């Protein structure tokens, strides 16, 4: 079946968010997402909150329009969170 446009957009958004948080907020790549325990906060949502807090956005843990707008801006490649 062809992929519905909304599902395709959702996939691209998730890809953008994951890539951004991996590059700039130390989000670890999860090689086995299906093995993740159900307890505890989703690491992606947690990192998203960190990013939203840094940029003074509303801290929702969700990729809302304001958050995506910041993620699409040209920027420096050095991470905002350095360990």
């Amino acid at each position, binding site marked *: 079946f062809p992929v519905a446009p909304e599902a395709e957009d959702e996939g691209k958004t998730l890809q953008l968010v994951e890539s951004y948080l991996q590059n*700039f907020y130390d989000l670890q790549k999860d090689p086995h997402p299906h093995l993740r325990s159900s307890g505890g906060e989703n690491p992606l949502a947690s990192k998203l909150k960190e990013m939203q807090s*840094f*940029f003074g956005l509303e801290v929702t843990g969700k990729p809302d329009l304001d958050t995506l707008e*910041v993620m699409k801006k040209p920027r*420096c*490649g*050095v991470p*905002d969170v350095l360990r």
Partner: protein
Amino acid sequence: YAFTPGNPKWKRNNLTYRILNYTPKMTRADVDEAIRKALSVWSNVTPLTFQKVEDEVADIMISFAYRDHRDNSPFDGPNGQLAHAFQPGEGLGGDVHMDEEEAWTKDGRGYNLFIVLAHELGHSLGLSHSNDPGALMYPTYSYTDPSEFRLPQDDIDGIQAIYGRSNA
């Protein structure tokens, strides 16, 4: 402002820089001028001095690179990530890499080389990203006319906390 974790800094105030290659999108003279001006942003408010060298290893090596350029931080093509730089230290430390696939300019079209370089040199000297939207060290690109550029107070406070004030 924020420091790089571990507070790395140069142990000397007299630093050297070298331009490893040039972008074909600007004249060599304009690139030289953008780099000189970007360095002066930081040397104007600290005791730091920068001397250009030609054929030797410099503290700060500046280059234009494509995609994977063997530092484990590949560029992503036009837009997105514009450049990156390394914290003070040996080897890669202090080096500045500019994404060759960006539309580098000396004015407001595309991406202004001076503005991006001045930001990256902040990393080369030990500053991390600031969450002050008006700061030069804010992570996202924002154009300011180079002739009207003045280093924001947040960045002055940050760099002077590391190296002290200018002797002048």
